[in-house]
């Protein structure tokens, strides 16, 4: 393998794939970055076996030659050293040359590095992509989907399946659900694809957080391909693979109550700030619980009482309170997480009794829903 490449492009790619490489791995080859040179360009791959990131540098872009391929081939180089080397190279072009078998020479200007490579054949094989199963959504929507659901995944390993977000594709609609069995976040999005493939997979929350970090805020489309073992997110030059969680996701449809007894419409920001203030005193106690009660007319009361510290009461004006009177307690943290994830200035909270889960959704928007289980105090 031998090629000459523009350093800036290489550096950007290396930085992208480095996000997937960890030093804590039991598989020695995963400490490396795989570099493959073909006639079309150079592909870099980094992986920690949970997620894998592939970055492609085309030979020519915008009529500018980025890579000059002299000989095709593949090699795995130690990620830690390779990334540092690339960052500190003196000139803007780099030559990478694999000499006899695994000896790799990196030349730039007058500096020359010799690195011992590893056999690229030993690197884990990423699934081959078949384009048929793909569906596409814009990057910014994808990021919103992730942001609005991933916070609700479980952090406890007792039920591993809940550490992921359930992605369902049905009738050109994507439904993302995350729950840790105390709260639930659901987000729907219409797909603009004609393909009516059906999928039901669980993607680890950590992978989605990582994905959201490497995507930039553009309206460019992301191709999403679901394979048997992995899910692939494909942008122009970046491929992001993630392993899936094994098992069946619990059926969450029954959890969401249909009837409602009390409806409250309130300004999101005001409500969020009131909860935040009330939680100041609640936070000291372990449970972080605030009380919510409807009072006469169009207002509600948020209060919290920790006997050893003190108590706080705040009244908020609402747009409307309909239905039965209600007193309920819930975790301030869950409520704030949910409110931060919602879009829209007005939200509607629908209760079905003090012991039943309640639903929060933006006014006139069915695409997103947050569900929280109350805490038993009254």
């Amino acid at each position, binding site marked *: 393998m031998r090629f000459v490449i523009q350093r800036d492009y290489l550096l950007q790619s290396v930085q992208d794939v480095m996000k997937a490489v960890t030093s804590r791995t*039991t*598989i*020695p*080859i*995963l400490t490396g970055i795989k570099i493959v040179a073909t006639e079309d360009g150079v592909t870099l791959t980094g992986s920690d*076996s*949970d997620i894998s990131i592939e970055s492609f540098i085309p030979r020519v872009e915008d009529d500018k030659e980025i890579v000059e391929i002299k000989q095709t081939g593949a090699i795995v180089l130690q990620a830690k050293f390779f990334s540092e080397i690339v960052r500190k190279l003196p000139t803007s072009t780099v030559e990478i040359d694999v000499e006899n078998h695994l000896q790799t020479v990196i030349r730039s200007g007058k500096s020359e590095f010799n690195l011992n490579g590893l056999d690229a*054949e*030993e*690197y*884990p*094989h990423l*699934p081959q992509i078949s384009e048929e199963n793909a569906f596409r959504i814009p990057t910014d929507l994808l990021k919103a989907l992730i942001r609005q659901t991933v916070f609700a995944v479980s952090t406890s*390993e007792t039920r*591993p*399946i809940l*550490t992921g977000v359930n992605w369902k594709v049905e009738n050109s609609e994507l439904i993302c659900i995350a729950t840790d069995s105390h709260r639930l976040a659901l987000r729907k999005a219409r797909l603009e694809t004609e393909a009516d493939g059906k999928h039901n997979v669980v993607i*680890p929350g950590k992978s989605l957080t990582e994905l959201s970090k490497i995507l930039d805020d553009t309206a460019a489309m992301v191709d999403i391909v679901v394979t*048997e*073992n*992995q899910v692939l997110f494909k942008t122009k030059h970046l491929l992001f693979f993630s*392993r*899936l*969680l*094994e*098992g069946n996701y619990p059926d969450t449809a029954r959890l969401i109550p249909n009837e409602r007894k009390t409806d409250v419409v309130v300004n999101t920001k005001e409500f969020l700030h009131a909860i935040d203030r009330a939680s100041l005193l609640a936070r000291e106690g372990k449970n972080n619980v605030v009380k919510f009660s409807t009072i006469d007319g169009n207002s509600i009361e948020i209060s919290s009482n920790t006997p050893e510290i003190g108590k706080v009461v705040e009244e908020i004006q609402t747009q409307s309170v309909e239905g039965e009177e209600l007193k309920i307690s819930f975790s301030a943290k869950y409520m704030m997480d949910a409110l931060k994830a919602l879009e829209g200035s007005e939200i509607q909270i629908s209760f079905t009794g003090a012991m039943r889960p309640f639903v929060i959704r933006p006014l006139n928007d069915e695409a997103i829903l947050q569900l929280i289980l109350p805490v038993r105090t009254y």
Partner: protein
Amino acid sequence: MTKSWEELEELQPTVLKMLRNSLLKERVAHAYLYEGMRGTGKKEIGSLMAKCIFCLSPIEGYKPCETCLNCKRINNGNHPDIHLVEPDGLSIKKAQIHALQGEFAKTGVESKKKLYMIVHADRMTTNAANSLLKFLEEPHPGTMAILMTEQAQQILPTILSRCQIIGFTPLSPKNLEKQLVEQGVNPEAAPLFAQLTNNFEEALEFSQNDWFAQAQKIVVKLYEVLKKNSLEAMVTLQENWFGHFKEKEQIDRGLDLFLLIFKDLLYIQLGKNDQIVNLSERSRLEQYALQTTGRRLTEQMAAILEAKRKLHANMNPQLLMEELVLKLQEGSSLV
């Protein structure tokens, strides 16, 4: 390091026969427990088993080809769907089992098959073992566990009952001898080490140990003194023996060595010259063999075995050795 199916078959014929049958009949268990002494090839057979399962083009339907990508990667520890857990320090911690469980909650990287090996499974902490239990109880389809241990009785019975236990036979001395010679141990000394221990690593340690070389000399000298001048034997004991063999274990080793000399003498008398282990002393031993009778040799060996028994019953070492020396001289005049 890696050994082929044939090499391992020589080492553990029964185990490999079992594995072959289960592979051919597609009745591979979801969890195995390999039990056997150190150096009996548990880890090698574990990795062989992994290759059998993951190999892309197995020979005759079960033997790994050793040339395909998966075989090569398993040999180099690079296969992403195979996980090896080894004690972190003294024990296998709960966090390690948790990491393993996290790994197995996800789909395989490449295939639907996943395999994990736990080396020294007896060193799992109670917490770790209990976490593993849940995991062993409800195996995901396509996952397989290989636990390895030297002491099966130290493993939780609840874990034992969920594994198919495969007992590894101890190595035969001849086999060990061969291994030692391959490792560069002097072919003259190898049979002796192989006789003394069943354990390859321990034998290798003996071969590199000064203490051991010295011990051998002292033992031979004691025998010679006994032969030549029985009165001097007590003096030799004081001069050499007690200074060198201090601990109980060391005395035990010394007695073992001593016993081997008598064993060799007996073999020489019986004409089984290929069984001799003290090869370096062979010519001298052959001479001595002419001067004694088989009956006497057996009596002397019995005396040594008796001394060994008394040693474990915590007899005073000095009295023990002196008594032994007197017994060995029995029949010859004390003047």
